């Protein structure tokens, strides 16, 4: 039955790990804004080149 003691200890350590991760996430503000990140990930990276692009390429024509 001493294996149960071991399991209990492991169980509590794993759970404590998640708890600490959760506390860290809350403290670092990850729960403050749940909207922006979902949009942010969809933005394309900007092209590195600084050459002026031609007008046709600009996605600015109103539909």
């Amino acid at each position, binding site marked *: *039955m001493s294996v*149960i*003691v071991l399991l*209990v200890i492991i*169980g*509590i350590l794993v*759970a*404590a790990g*998640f*708890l600490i991760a*959760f*506390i860290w996430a*809350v*403290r670092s*503000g990850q*729960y*403050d*804004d*749940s*909207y*922006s990140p979902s*949009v*942010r990930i969809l*933005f*394309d990276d*900007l*092209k590195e080149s*600084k050459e*002026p*692009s031609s*007008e046709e390429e*600009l*996605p*600015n*024509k*109103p*539909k």
Partner: protein
Amino acid sequence: MSQACVHCGEDCGKAPVLYKDLPFCCNGCKTVYQLLNEKELGSYYSIMPMAGIKVEEESAGEKYAWLDLEEIKNKLLEFNEGTISKVTFFIPAIHCASCLWLLENLHQLNPGVMASQVNFPKKEVSISFKNDQISLRKLVELLAAIHYIPEISLKDIDKKKDTSSNRKVLLKIGIAGFSFMNTMMYNFPDYLPGGELIEQEFRSLFGILSFLLALPVVFYCSNDYFLSAYKGLKHKVINIDLPIALGIITLFLQSSYEVFSGSGIGFFDSLSGLLFFMLIGKWYQNKTYQALSFERDYKSYFPVAVNKIMSDGSEQSIPLSDLQQGDILLIRNKEIIPADARIVSGQANIDYSFVTGEAMPVSKKIGDTVFGGGKQAGSAIQIEIIKEVKQNLLTQLWNQNQEKNQAQSVLNSLVNRVSKYFTVVIILIALVAMIYWLNVDKRLAIYAFTSVLIIACPCALALTVPFTFGNTMRQFGKREFYLKNTQVIEDLYRADTIVFDKTGTITMSKAFQLSFEGSLSDEEEALIKSLARHSTHPLSKAIVTHLADAPVHETHEFKELEGMGLSALIREQRVIMGSAAMVLGEKHSRELTESRVYVSIAGKYKGYYRLENTYKEGLGKLIEELSGRYELHLLSGDNDSEKAVLSRIFGSGTNLHFNQSPTDKLEYIRNLKKEGKTVIMIGDGLNDAGALHESHTGITIADDVYQFSPACEAILSGRQFKNLFSYIRFTHKSLRIVHISFGISFLYNIVGLSFAVQGILSPIVAAILMPVSSVSVVAFASLSVNWLAKRHLK
């Protein structure tokens, strides 16, 4: 043919500003577009077409010079070490994914910006920048240039608490959840058949582990309940947190006793689970409530406009939200000063009664500072805004001024009374149940006791009114009907009498047919305009609009006799305009068919303006709808020239009264109240302030331009006037929702309690059911209000 502006989507009118063949509504929008294109930020428009914000064009100049002051910088900057600084701005204009994208790409616009991050729900952007490359002032000017004007207030520093309290609840949920899950594992064997066969050493190990895990739950996660219950007891009030606190203490003590006496492993799992579910319920409530109050404070609030004096001397009315420091405003007789300001010209007589309750006006000289919320009495003054304008201030002002009607809310006092007895009754039931079960089964006694305490939470009862009415207000706000507070909904519901003002209320203030009988020189027109612009009366405003081109002279000894007219000394000539009695000193014959404003200059009678009214669209239909259910009255300050027309619209049942001065109107309302009627007064905010204030519900009709007056309880946009009836009817539906929610809540309590006293409901099930009931009531109230609004409000 008109096109939509590429930047902001507004109609460009007949002559759009063109840039690369694309239409823009103004130069400001074109500049932003150019700026974005130069820096290859064109994808701004692909994320959300026409995402931009239109702003009155204006160069920043020295407007933000104050941001260079060391002292101010220190207060605003969150971090300032060496060459790196960090700052957070509140930008109300943030509204879509494009805004987010652009603001997070600020470093493309200026290399001095290192990184920027947007918090969308709070409309904030945090920016880290190199202060040797871009100063705080330059940064703000950059934001202003792309039309994301930050709202800077030095009070910002105090309101950081919001985030931390939200985070605290989350932390508590996390810790309670952690303890709950683990204790449940330790208690699991006890729930199974044969659980009693577990060896004693394991039993005590599990017990002690559960006890340790419960410690943070009791001493950290539940401290709000203890604190609230303690505060209540200190003020000799039994509040709804007391039974919860009692339940927690009982569970904890009983369980600790069992563990340390070796008789069992207690109810620590129930205890942690209880807190876990209750905190989740609380978190959800907070979130919904925050969304409601945010909208109330910043977003859908009433559209206040002010008269700004442009650099070329012309007057323009702009929304309050566009007002900035350094702007010069014209404040006319009886208008409210929107923010702290310095007097530039004119004789100021400021009445602070809305702020301090002191009605004696204070006289101020040029150069003196006046505070937001004061009301000018006398001739118009010009002021320079010296402090950031906060819509909040006016909201507060509006809410402050509510000494009347208080303690009248039948609903709220009912809820309070019920909650008070509720708690006492619940504690008694719990005690009785415990005593009964003590003789039968000791374990069940604790179960029944705590279950009763936990399940019988009047939360649902307490939440119904704020959420139903809060949502109703929100729906009204979306449809341009702004209420002062939730109390107004109840007042509207109870009303049985409606009193209308005429000019500016049922007539269109913009659509006067105006002509002058007699002849006026240009100089005389200038004199008339100079006089009329001091007044906020609809007729004066119509005349000012009519004489748009005339220059303005300085006025002295301005006097406004309510319901009579205006007089002042301009260029050493006495100019008088107003009713026949005021100008000609006689009661004029009564066969008039239109409103007239008589004019005399330097003692000589010059003629009169003839103004023909056009009635608001849908007036006939509205009156028809209202007349069946409400007693209607019409009070007009005008002569009875339109009596025939009006009695045809209002029908024979309506009491029409003409030549009423503001004092007469007030008296009239007072008499109606004496007869036991609940009165809605619909009028013009400034000129009928007395009557609006006296009535149970004063509704101000706001056409395009609106001058704020805290005297009323509700503001209705002139465009929505025809829908007034459906708004008033909607309050009845709101009340019905409240009653149904009460019913649900009571039913729930009775069913829950009947199970709890039998001891068949474990505290943990009670703890799940309790927040579920709160959440279901909140959801029912919000959803049904929104659904009904969609169906019944236009």
